[in-house]
C-alpha cells in the first residue's frame, strides 16, 4: 500500500512540476471564464446556461487533460528509461499501474474541484447565490474520467502514446453515443453488424450512465439507487481494466 502511495505521489509531483501542465490548467479556467460572457441573454436563461455550459466545460476539459497526460504516463518512463530503476526495486508491477492511476486521478480530482469552485463564483455573480448541487453533478463524472485513465493505461502497456491517446478519445466518444449503437443494432439488417453492435453495446462502458448534468441543471437530483448503481458500474470497469493492464505489464520486457 505504501508503495502505491510512493508511486502516485511521484506521478503527482512529476506532472505538477511541469510548466506545460499549468498552462493547460490555466486554459481550462480561461475557457470557463469566457463562457460567462458568451451568453448575455435574459436573466432566467442565463442562469441555466451558465450552469449547463460550466459543467460541460469542466467535464470536457478534464477529459481532454486526462487523454493528453494519461497517454504519456507509462510511456514517458519507458522512453526515458526511468522505469529501469523502478521495476528493479521490490515494487510490484501492478502497484506501478495502480499508483499511476491514483496519481493522475488525484490531480484531476483537485482540478475538477478547483474549476467547480470557480464555476460557483461565476454562478454567484449571475444569481447572487451559490448552487452546490453542481458538485453532485460532477460526482458520477469522476468515474467516467477514471475509466478513461484506466483505458489509457491499458493501451499504454502494449501500444504507443499516440495510439493510446486515440483509443482513449475513441472510447470517450463511443461511450457517450452508446445508446445510438443499440439503436443501430436494432435497425441493422446485417446479422454481423447486429451482433457486432450488440456486443459493443453491452461490453463497452456507457458513459451516459455517469451523465446527470441535465437533470441537475433542471433541479432534479437522482435517487439513491442511481448512485449505488453508477458507483458499482464504474468500479467494475476500473478494477477490471486495471487488472488486465497489470497482467500485461507483468509480462512486459524493458528493452
Amino acid at each position, binding site marked *: 500500500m505504501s*508503495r502505491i502511495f510512493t508511486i502516485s505521489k511521484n506521478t503527482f509531483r512529476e506532472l505538477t512540476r511541469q510548466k506545460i501542465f499549468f498552462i493547460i490548467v490555466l486554459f481550462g479556467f480561461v475557457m470557463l471564464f469566457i463562457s460567462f460572457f458568451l451568453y448575455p441573454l435574459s436573466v432566467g436563461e442565463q442562469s441555466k446556461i451558465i450552469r449547463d455550459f460550466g459543467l460541460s466545460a469542466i467535464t470536457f476539459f478534464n477529459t481532454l487533460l486526462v487523454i493528453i497526460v494519461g497517454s504519456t504516463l507509462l510511456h514517458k518512463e519507458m522512453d526515458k528509461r526511468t522505469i529501469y530503476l523502478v521495476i528493479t526495486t521490490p515494487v510490484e508491477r501492478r502497484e506501478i499501474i495502480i499508483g499511476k492511476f491514483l496519481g493522475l486521478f488525484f490531480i484531476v480530482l483537485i482540478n475538477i474541484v478547483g474549476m467547480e469552485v470557480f464555476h460557483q463564483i461565476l454562478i454567484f455573480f449571475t444569481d447572487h447565490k451559490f448552487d452546490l448541487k453542481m458538485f453532485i453533478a460532477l460526482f458520477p463524472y469522476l468515474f467516467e474520467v477514471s475509466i478513461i485513465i484506466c483505458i489509457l493505461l491499458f493501451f499504454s502497456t502494449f501500444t504507443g502514446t499516440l495510439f493510446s491517446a486515440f483509443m482513449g478519445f475513441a472510447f470517450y466518444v463511443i461511450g457517450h453515443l452508446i445508446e445510438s449503437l443499440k439503436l443501430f443494432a436494432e435497425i441493422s439488417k446485417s446479422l454481423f453488424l447486429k451482433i457486432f453492435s450488440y456486443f459493443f453495446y453491452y461490453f463497452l462502458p456507457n458513459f451516459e450512465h455517469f451523465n446527470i448534468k441535465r437533470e441537475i441543471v433542471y433541479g432534479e437530483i437522482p435517487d439513491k439507487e442511481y448512485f449505488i448503481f453508477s458507483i458499482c458500474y464504474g468500479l467494475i470497469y476500473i478494477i477490471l481494466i486495471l487488472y488486465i493492464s497489470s497482467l500485461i505489464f507483468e509480462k512486459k520486457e524493458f528493452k
Partner: protein
Amino acid sequence: MNNDIIEAKSLAKSFRIGLKRKKILHSISFNIEKEEIFGFLGPNGAGKTTTIKILTGLLNYDSGEVKVFGVKPGEKEARKKTGFLPEQPYFYEHLTGYEFLEFTGKLYGMDNKALKKKIPELLEIVRLKDAGRKRIRTYSRGMLQRIGIANALIRDPELLILDEPLTGLDPIGRKEIKDLIFEQKKRGKTVFFSSHILPDAEQICDRVGVIFNGKIIKIGPLNEILKERITSYEIILRNINENVLNGLNFVKIGNEIVIRTKEEDIESILRNLFEKSNDFKIVKISPEVYTLEEWFVEILKEKNE
C-alpha cells in the same frame, strides 16, 4: 545449499528484429559466488547489458535456467537483496538527488527515519552532498553516475549488479568507486559488474568472465588467468661482470643488467652465476607484467581469426 548468489545455466536470449529472430546470447553459463567481485568483460555489442537485464528481471529469456538468490531473476525475493546500476542511468529530472533516493528507498520498503539517516550518508560517500538538493536535470554525466551508484546502495544490498559503473567518471571518481566496491566485498557483499576499463577491473576483480558474440569464451580467477599467460621472467642484477653472462639473453640498462628467461630456468641461471662470481647483487626477480588488457586483446584476436 551452495554458495552461489547467481547461477546461469545454458542461458539463451534472442530479440525479434522485424520478422526474424536474432540470437544475442548463445547458451551462456556462469556462477557468481558469495563475496566475490566478478568482472564481466567483452567488446561493444557482446551481450553484457542483455545478460545484466536478464539478471535484474528487465528482460525475459528464451531458454536455460537462471537463479538469483535461488529464485527466478526479477522475483521480489531477488529484487529485495539486489542493488542495480543500469548502463547510462536515467532519473526523474523533476526530482532532486535527495528526493530520488527517497523515492527508491521507499520502494525498497524503508521508512522516513531510516532514509533521513541513510541518504545524507550516501550522498557524502558519492560526493554529492551539496548537489543532493539540486534537480537531477542540472547534473553532469559523472554526477548522474554517482547518484546512480548511491541509488544502487540505498538498501545496503547483498548483491550489486553494476553495468559499467566506472564509465563517465574522472580518475579520482573511478578510484573512489573502486574503493567503494572493494568495501562492499569486505562487508560480505557480492558485486557483479561490467566494464570496458580493464586496468581498473584488474585492480578489483576476483574473477572475470569474457563474453564475445553472445558466448562466454573465458571465465576464471584473475590471478590464474594472468599467470597462465606469464611467459617470461626478468632477473635484474647489479655489479656484475658482463663476461660471466656469456650465452645469456640480457640487456644493459644503466648500471643494471636485465636477464629475460623462463620460470624453470631461473634457478640454474642463478646457480651458474654464483659459481663464476660472488660479489653481484640481485635487485629483483619478477614476472614480466602481463595486463588484463593485453590478455583481453589477445584472446579477442584469437577469436577473430
